[in-house]
């Protein structure tokens, strides 16, 4: 029998979780936009909008301290951050393109070096995904093999139903646990008809074909052609659910400070700048090439996955209108 939950109960679920001390992260109004942020109550949850930034920051924060140091007469005192302090988190209302991302990122964060910051947060996080019933002309999840109703990556997956409420599908044990913990909020019901899922306009892309072109075209005039308009900002990377480059800097004073890890972007001119002053990716086309190569070739070579969920955020955010879907389409035609 399928479980369903009303919108009211979904909000009540958030309230209950918050009360219990769980950090609940979901789409929330932040100024004039919507972002995934901790919710103080269920009332704050915004449904029906794709937040500007992806949900990846729940595991991979925009900026976090990784240690702090203090110089004293006795020497340098270093204090590590204790990952056990990371809060139990539930992400509510993650769209399939966001929910799918951690599953992709797990590979890189647990490969030769186990990133305990990421992994600990990941372990403590439950994702409640939500199927999309609408999309815009930047959405292209279907082109990269996902769909607006794909439960991949979600622990619990909600599908909006005609007449309100959501069908709930426990995808993982974490999801089942949640269902079990708050049985009063979920109803066993004859499934009402699911609302029709969104239909992004793009054709499904032949990712293998794209990859094989990339394999042979490290040098190609196309890179310059696409990216000569690129202004070199990091907007695309920072809104992307799958981009995961980061920088580590020491900040603070001479006697006291923190080592911090924060998002970085391969579009930045300084991204690969060496201390010597030499920069192997010294021009924007090389940097843009890296962005595409990393997503559709290198990551695939290494982990067998594509580093893109088709959320379309980079298309919306790019101030010079670079459209990754159009780029992929062009490559796939080569």
């Amino acid at each position, binding site marked *: 029998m399928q479980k369903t939950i009303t919108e009211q109960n979904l909000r009540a679920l958030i309230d209950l979780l918050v009360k219990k001390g769980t950090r609940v992260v979901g789409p929330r109004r932040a100024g004039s936009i919507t972002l995934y942020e901790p919710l103080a109550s269920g009332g704050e949850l915004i449904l029906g909008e794709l937040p500007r930034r992806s949900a990846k920051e729940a595991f991979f924060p925009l900026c976090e301290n990784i240690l702090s140091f203090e*110089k004293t*007469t006795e020497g340098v005192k270093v204090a590590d951050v204790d990952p056990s302090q990371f809060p139990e988190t539930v992400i509510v209302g993650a769209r399939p393109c966001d929910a799918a991302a951690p599953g992709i990122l797990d590979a890189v964060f647990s490969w030769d070096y186990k990133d305990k910051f990421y992994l600990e947060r990941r372990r403590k996080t439950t994702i409640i995904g939500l199927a999309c019933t609408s999309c815009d002309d930047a959405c292209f999840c279907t082109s990269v093999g996902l769909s607006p109703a794909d439960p991949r990556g979600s622990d619990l997956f909600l599908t909006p139903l005609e007449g309100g409420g959501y069908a709930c599908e426990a995808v993982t044990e974490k999801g089942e646990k949640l269902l079990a913990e708050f049985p009063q909020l979920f109803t066993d019901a004859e499934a009402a008809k699911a609302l029709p899922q969104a239909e992004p306009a793009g054709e499904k892309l032949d990712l293998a074909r794209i990859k094989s072109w990339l394999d042979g075209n490290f040098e190609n005039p196309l890179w310059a052609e696409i990216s000569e308009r690129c202004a070199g900002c990091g907007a695309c990377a920072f809104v992307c659910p799958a981009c995961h480059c980061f920088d580590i800097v020491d900040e603070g*004073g*001479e*006697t006291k400070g923190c080592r911090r890890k924060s998002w970085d972007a391969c579009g930045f001119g300084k991204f690969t700048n060496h201390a010597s*002053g030499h920069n192997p990716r010294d021009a924007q086309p090389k940097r843009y090439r890296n962005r595409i190569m990393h997503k559709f070739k290198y990551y695939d070579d290494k982990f067998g996955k594509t580093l893109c969920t088709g959320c379309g955020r980079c298309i919306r955010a790019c101030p010079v209108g670079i459209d990754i879907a159009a780029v992929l389409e062009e490559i796939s035609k080569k």
Partner: protein
Amino acid sequence: MSRIGVFVCHCGENISRTVDVERVAQAAARLPGVAYATDYKYMCSDPGQSLLKKAIAEHNLDGVVVAACSPRMHEKTFRKAAEATGLNPFVCEMANIREHCSWVHEDREEATAKAIDIVKLMAARVRRNRRLAAITVPVTKRALVIGGGIAGIQAALDIADAGHEVVLVEREPSIGGHMAQLSETFPTLDCSQCIMTPKMVDVANHPKITLHTYSEIEEVGGYIGNFQVTVRKKARSVDMAKCTGCGVCMAKCPQKKIPNAFDKDMGTRPAIYVPFPQAVPNTPVIDRENCTYFKSGKCGVCAKVCGPCAVDYTQQDELVTEQIGAIVVATGFDLYSIEPKPADSPIQGYGEFGYGTIPDVIDGMTFERLASASGPTGGKILRPSDGKEPKEVVFIQCVGSRAREKGISYCSKICCMYTAKHTMLYKHKVHDGQAYVFFMDARTPGKNYDEFWRRAIEEEEAVYIRGMVSRLYQKGDKVVVMGSDISVGIQVEIEADLVVLATAVQARKGADTLAQKLGISYDKYNFYSEAHAKLKPVECATAGIYLAGACQGPKDIPDTVSQASAAAAKVMTLFAKDQLEREPIVARVNERFCAACFACKKVCPYGAVEEKEIRDRQGNLIRVVASVNPGVCGGCGTCQATCPSKSVELDGYTDEQVMAMIEAL
């Protein structure tokens, strides 16, 4: 610097009375980068300095903080001491815990805490200090003097006598300037030409002086010690090398009716002329505007009569470039003229004085020419309108000067004295004449000046009327002077035969253009600005350029000569060394990051920022960046605060040093 020594001074009890110096030293020892800290009774004393030197050697210190008095007091002392041990002097800094702490606070706890903080700030700073090397700039020991009046002549002779080469540039055909026009000089009444002409001849004969007369400055490039100056030698139409100065050409020139400017247009001269008989050089020049040959192509008399064939009608202006180490600007002044106000001038004319339409209203310089034995009247005082000897002469002071409503607020400084002189000269020549002087104040500061003025009144019977003149008008052959005598409060009317106006001393016409070529600043009256009113009265803010005489402001002859000698002394000081050494607190451009917006150049008060082209080995231009000339940079650091990317840094006050101090706040 990571091995800093901190030396806390007691200053007898001056510091230790309110600051617990031992505690300061103990706290200092715990500061990052500090390897050694101690305190001592008198750090500046010999034993104190020895202690410092010894500690530097023993503890292998690479930076020093002396916590004592103000750096304005002893920074040099301690830097020298540090330098004696082999340290770079610029890694030694002072923490001011006396003037800024012990002397201004009473509470021992608070003062001690503050002293520790001050030491902390300075230690943080010294950690980022860089070793700076003194900057040297080569010096071309060749001076340019612009202007051949008494100021320029004096400066040129002084510098040349010291053994340095001098290039003297004069706009007119002869040197001599205004002083050559004067009859006698106050307060001694000695003959101006008698004291002037020998100096002019000295200039002409001096082996170290290159004289360019009838020449103007075309272009100035470079900087202190290394100027390149282009001089335009105007076509004289007479070959200087061939001319013997015999004067036959002038005698034979058929065009003789040209008003002689040297005599204030009262006499005449030929078209080929020397301005006055004692001219230096004594080579005539053809006034092409008035020469019949140049106007119509006919005549050519002078060429025909010239024995050595020196007349050359085809001569062209010539540009000469001189390498110069220092420049003395001595361009002098112009006299305010009573004319309707020029359209673009902020200065109002004197309509009430008839705008100079009354022929017997003349200015002081015209009177000088009348009184001069070599003048158009042979020294007789004869009025211009009818050549009669004036029996009643009215002198009016402050015409143009001290007249805010007319646009000039300053005092011309010399008029009180020369007007007094004029009354005397007049009385000496016209025994039964009466001189009246309208004056606001009589300003006679100067050796024997007031005595001189009193003599004009008491012995030469000049009548001084305190008050200004409201109107002059012609009445028959008299000039009626309507004025007021404010000391008795009555209106005065004098029917005079001649009126002499003591007109204001103004900056030379075109002074601003020359200033722009030189890159020096000038005030709203176009007088050149000295770098500091008290302490640098002969220096321009632009290094290597000095001022002499009235181009800087109204001045009499003694002041002018003194300033000229002072400027010469400054040039000699500069020339005393082969290289110019200066404190290395100068800005440097990080060429790699300079985006060439030249904001630094726009704000630099010294014009020290240049545009530098970076080329590859083939000579192709890669990019242009800013570049600071360390010889010219004054070290204010305005460029750095202005540069958005901080690609220009002031050595000694880098952002790194400042940020470290802010960090340590």
